[in-house]
């Protein structure tokens, strides 16, 4: 039994290296002694028969329409996997495309796939910086945010509370959205590498569905040591930046 991790539209949706989270899941599975593979999927025809986890990263605004069209061909599958409990991690514009929709500054909009509640609305300026959140389910999550839109309508089920950074914005004090096993977040890049407990919970879900046992391997313990030190540095920097702003 091989765990199949799908990286959705990695050509278009990998601006911040978010699609690499698929590889992170596969590596951790291998370190735990499980077989795992990453399948890059650009359209419905490329979908494997079995899917154990999905990662959809962030792209440029100029590719929103193209990415949306590609995702629409897999609308039924995505919806079904979401309800069946397949872990789906969607980041940045990938998350926005799975929402109710995206509002542009000129008032026009892009309809989303409606798999996650809420929608993306223009924010006053681009937000880039460290983002630290406290998630009741996944613990303290650390990463980098890079987005030009806020997110509204996720109040009922955010991923966590913002400790440093902006997150969903509009004074919500919240970051991300969760619907069962479908997760949307502004945390970019190596979010699963830097937050190993987050990765392990998603892998746990995938493994259980596949009838497998997952427990992090010995190699993971060493690598998670690097993650812990990187997290500590980033939390420290975010805290210092926050106290400067407060002063």
């Amino acid at each position, binding site marked *: 039994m091989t765990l199949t991790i799908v990286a959705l539209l990695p050509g278009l949706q*990998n*601006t*911040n*290296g*978010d*699609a*690499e989270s698929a*590889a*992170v899941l596969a*590596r951790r599975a291998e370190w735990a002694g499980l077989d795992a593979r990453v399948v890059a999927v650009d359209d419905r025809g490329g979908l494997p028969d079995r899917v154990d986890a999905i990662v959809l990263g962030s*792209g*440029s*605004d*100029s590719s929103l329409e193209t990415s949306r069209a590609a995702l629409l061909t897999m609308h039924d599958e995505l919806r079904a996997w979401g309800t069946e409990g397949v872990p789906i991690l969607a980041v940045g514009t990938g998350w926005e495309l799975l929402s109710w929709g995206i509002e542009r500054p000129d008032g026009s909009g892009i309809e989303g796939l409606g798999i996650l509640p809420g929608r993306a609305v223009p924010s006053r300026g*681009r937000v*880039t*910086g*460290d983002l630290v959140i406290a998630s009741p389910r996944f613990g303290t999550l650390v990463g*980098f945010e*890079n987005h*030009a839109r806020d997110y509204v309508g996720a109040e009922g089920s955010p991923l966590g509370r913002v400790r440093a950074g902006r997150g969903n914005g509009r004074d919500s004090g919240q970051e991300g959205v969760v619907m069962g096993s479908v997760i949307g977040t502004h945390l*970019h*890049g*190596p979010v699963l*590498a*830097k937050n190993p407990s987050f990765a392990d919970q998603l892998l746990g879900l995938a493994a259980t569905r596949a009838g497998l046992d997952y427990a992090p391997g010995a190699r993971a313990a*060493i*690598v998670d040591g*690097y*993650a812990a*030190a*990187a997290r500590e*540095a980033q939390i420290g920097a975010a805290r210092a930046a926050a106290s400067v702003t407060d002063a």
Partner: protein
Amino acid sequence: MRYAPAILVGRCVRFAARLRKPGGGSAVPGLIVNRIAPGYLKRTLSGFPQGLVVVSGSSGKSTTTKMLVAILRAHGVDVFTNPSTANISQGLTSALLERADWRGRVPGDVAVLEMDEGHGALVMQGVDARVVTLLNVMVDQIDRFHDSDMVARMLARIAARAHESIVVNADDAYLERIAEQAGPDVAVHRFGVSDAVLQAAPRGLGYTETTRARLAADAGVRVEAVAGDTAVLGDRGASVEIRLPARGTHYAVDAAAAYATARAVLGERFSETTAADAVSAIPAVFGRGERVRVRGHDVEFVLVQNPASYQLNVDSIEPGTEQILFAMGSDVRDPSYFWPTDASALGRVAIVSGSKAHEAALMLAYDGVDIDRVEPDLARALDDFLAAPAPKSGVKTIVFTADAMRRTRAHLGLTGAE
């Protein structure tokens, strides 16, 4: 005369800055002149008799500018150019002041400026360029440039300042779209690589979006072949052989860009052989595959500037190189955009260092690289790395980002090149 007082103040400040920090060029004089004579930069840049040439893009600006200046000088042209660190308006003004007479006039026939894609659009406001050369659009420094759309928008604004011609990389789809916007009076010159060269690059050219079709042989300056540190440029049916400052297809592309730009600037005066000789005479650049003798060891230095150069450089490190020090510094604000690269070819790294050591170690570990030690203190890492006995295979190799390179050079007392 209108700028004389401002120039005088700027020079006094420069002199004072020098006293405090010998040999150090400073942006402060430029800052002050910009404040008291805001039109100085614009007027001076627009005042060169043979015009202003601007080189911008995500990667390769310094090398291309260096090559272009060498070609123009070899043709007897008096060139003003900026050091690569001085490409925001204060630094640029300071660089101009270095050469200015008491009235603020800067001698030279032509100015060739390397322009940061972020600051360029701002600096170029109201400035008239004769030729603008655009190299590529790559993912880089997402904290500054967010995404490729943003970089392309900034480059389009720089290109819009060209009144005679723009020179674009025909393999870069973003730049081809900018070229389509060029006005009817603006000529478009192109450079690119042949199909064979692209096929030989296992991971492509590193551009965010590569065009589907290659440049036709007669449609511009084309890299026909790359072998080690030599390349052949195809130019109007002629094959021009050149030597590169280091191995790598991207240096050949930089050379093609410089060559095509020089042709656009010089017109009838351009000579293929003069250009080829000038490019070939450029010495190897520190931190780009150069070998230096340090503390009794041959050490190879590899500079990582962006994901594309990272991938190219990692792939070109001799397989089985036993001792590698990998240092990532604070210039990489957040390394997310480096994650799509694949460093598995390194196999094993002896020490990971720099202020972003743990971020770098995390990335390398997920690429399957074994790491012997993580030591964020770069000075200690360098000392221990160089104190270890010579490797049985390969040379000691130091891979670093720009900030880590500066600290490494300072710690090891290396000066000279650049």
